[in-house]
């Protein structure tokens, strides 16, 4: 028996509503139970997703191809890890929410990511600009709420406002771009657009390109591509850490799947498609440079991860720009899979280390190797993978990206990539230095880690190495 493909979103949606109902109707329950329910439910969805195969969906605006399935898996996995982090982060949430009971607002904090996850899953399958727009907005509005969630925390609110305004701006550009694409092609469906594009007369092509570029701007905002990335460091720093992770992985991933679909559709008209790729190359170059260079003097770990997230968007954009190569989609997918593992791992460790109200500066990681060797090792692996040390998943991603770039002769981007990888080693190893070289300050003691987080860290570390050593597993993600 196969489950109809669109049911997965509905399962997740139902799960989210279930959590909300539980929140409403149970008074005494420990809210952390809800998180466990969410995790288990999502895990079930993830397992069910394993059975789904590409095939017709029966809807024009919704496809079920292998990329869609992959990105759904990414969304679900990310959400699971975010929920795990949220459990560890619950104390901080409580501290910054006004409530009659210590549990106030926690249920929603666990339920909203699940609903967001549904939005991401819809986005993964959407090939109609209408569906793309609404699911994108579902994700965006959820993030408005989540980012500003700790409303007694000025930083969280500030981040929320910044995200709100800038995201609204980008939404404006996106919808304006969609308008123009529709105006020229008379279609909102990417599959149809791909069909009609070759017949677009020359005089209308600037309009088409204008629209495509504005859509690119909007998506560039989502994936944190320079010069539309300015919100990233501030919002990442201000948001609750699990949400930062969610933004950094989930929001970015689905941004990329939409970008890939749009760019792919436009390839049927080379006059426009190639110029669109030129634009992506420019964005990739700017993003690589900005993300990696601005990270160099960073001293706050969360901001560092924000810049790193920008930098990685640059690498993935290189792969997107190489859409002419057979491995382009694969490179994006593999890179994102690796990125998911290593970024979530970093954030998970960050949440655990800072759970008791310590700051999230790199200095706070001093001597972590002595306080908690396991956490330090986990973060070490994450940093190695982020920096791109071979035999880790991160290296495989970079390897594919460089391969794609070489195949499509993007030598300029390769040269930039070399420089930025060098920079990357510097700032990732700054964290390693803090953990291993520096002595811990006298006041701090060892850090308690819950069994669930421990297991999650262990699994992610193993997965990072497994993907790195057996590339076929990663490549099999997108056959």
């Amino acid at each position, binding site marked *: 028996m196969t489950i109809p493909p669109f049911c997965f979103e509905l399962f997740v949606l139902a799960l989210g509503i279930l959590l909300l109902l539980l929140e409403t109707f149970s008074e005494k329950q420990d809210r952390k139970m809800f998180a466990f329910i969410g995790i288990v439910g999502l895990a079930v969805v993830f397992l069910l997703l394993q059975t789904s195969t590409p095939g017709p969906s029966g809807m*024009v605006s919704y496809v079920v191809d292998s990329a869609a399935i992959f990105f759904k898996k990414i969304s679900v996995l990310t959400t699971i890890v975010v929920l795990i982090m949220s459990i560890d982060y619950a104390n901080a949430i409580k501290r910054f*929410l006004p409530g009659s009971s210590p549990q106030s607002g926690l249920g929603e904090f666990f339920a*909203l990511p699940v609903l967001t996850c549904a939005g991401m899953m819809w986005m993964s399958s959407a090939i*109609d600009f209408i569906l793309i727009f609404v699911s994108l907005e*579902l994700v965006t509005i959820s993030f408005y*709420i989540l980012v500003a969630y700790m409303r007694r925390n000025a930083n969280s609110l500030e981040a929320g406002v910044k995200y709100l305004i800038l995201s609204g701006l980008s939404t404006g550009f996106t919808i304006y771009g969609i308008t123009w694409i529709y105006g020229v092609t008379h279609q909102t469906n990417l599959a149809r657009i791909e069909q009609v594009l070759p017949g677009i007369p020359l005089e209308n092509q600037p*309009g088409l390109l*204008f629209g495509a570029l504005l859509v690119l701007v909007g998506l560039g905002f989502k994936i944190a591509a320079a010069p539309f990335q300015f919100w990233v460091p501030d919002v990442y720093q201000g948001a609750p850490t699990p949400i930062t992770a969610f933004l950094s992985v989930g929001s970015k991933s689905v941004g990329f799947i939409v970008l890939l679909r749009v760019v792919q559709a436009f390839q049927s008209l080379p006059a426009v498609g190639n110029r669109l790729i030129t634009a992506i190359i420019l964005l990739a170059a700017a993003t690589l440079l900005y993300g990696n260079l601005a990270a160099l003097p960073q001293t706050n770990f969360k901001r560092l991860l924000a810049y790193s997230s920008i930098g990685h968007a640059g690498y993935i954009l290189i792969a997107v720009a190489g859409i002419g190569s057979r491995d382009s989609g694969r490179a994006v997918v593999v890179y994102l899979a690796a990125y998911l593992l290593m970024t979530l791992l970093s954030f998970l460790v960050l949440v655990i280390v800072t759970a008791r109200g310590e700051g999230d500066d790199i200095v706070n990681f001093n001597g972590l190797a002595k306080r908690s060797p396991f956490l330090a090792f986990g973060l070490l692996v994450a940093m190695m993978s982020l920096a791109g040390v071979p035999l880790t998943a991160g290296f495989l991603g970079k390897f594919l990206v460089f391969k794609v770039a070489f195949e499509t002769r993007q030598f300029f981007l390769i040269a930039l990539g070399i420089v930025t990888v060098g920079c990357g080693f510097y700032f990732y190893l700054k964290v390693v230095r803090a953990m291993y070289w520096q002595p811990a300050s006298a006041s701090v003691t060892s850090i308690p880690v819950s069994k669930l987080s421990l297991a999650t860290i262990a699994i992610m570390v193993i997965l990072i190495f497994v993907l790195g050593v057996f590339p076929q597993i990663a490549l099999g993600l997108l056959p």
Partner: protein
Amino acid sequence: MSPILFWIFVAIMLFFAGMVVLNRNPVASALSLVVSFMALAALYVSLDAYFIGVIQILVYAGAVMVLFLFIIMLLDLKAEVRRRMNFPAVCGGFVVILLFLKVLSDVCYGVFGGNAKLPPISQGPKGDAWQVGMLIFERYNLALQVVGTLILVASIGVVILSKRELK
């Protein structure tokens, strides 16, 4: 609709849009916004999009603007105290906007031969509300569900963010 009416409504829309930006009093801005959106609704109607025009007035002029006004009142926002303008920023902003307009007008007047005529339409047996509704509930049913979720999320969010004391 005659071109004269079109231009009048365009002028009203743009003028009050400008007022939104230029007024220093938030209340005046909000009211200007309402006027601008009403002119916009008239333009929708001029394009035979009656349903959307009605929605525009209902949602924007009726709901959103009330919300804006309500919040402005709630927060007791005074007219902005004139602060020293940051001239480089303002100039930069103008340059960016003018350049954007330049691109936009180049694109606008470049496409469709520059003078696409309004094609005649036949009045169908069902109104456009019916047409739009059919599309929404059949073809874009999924999108509608997504929007439903969105509204659910938004309402939870509003509660979380603004309730004085959570239960």
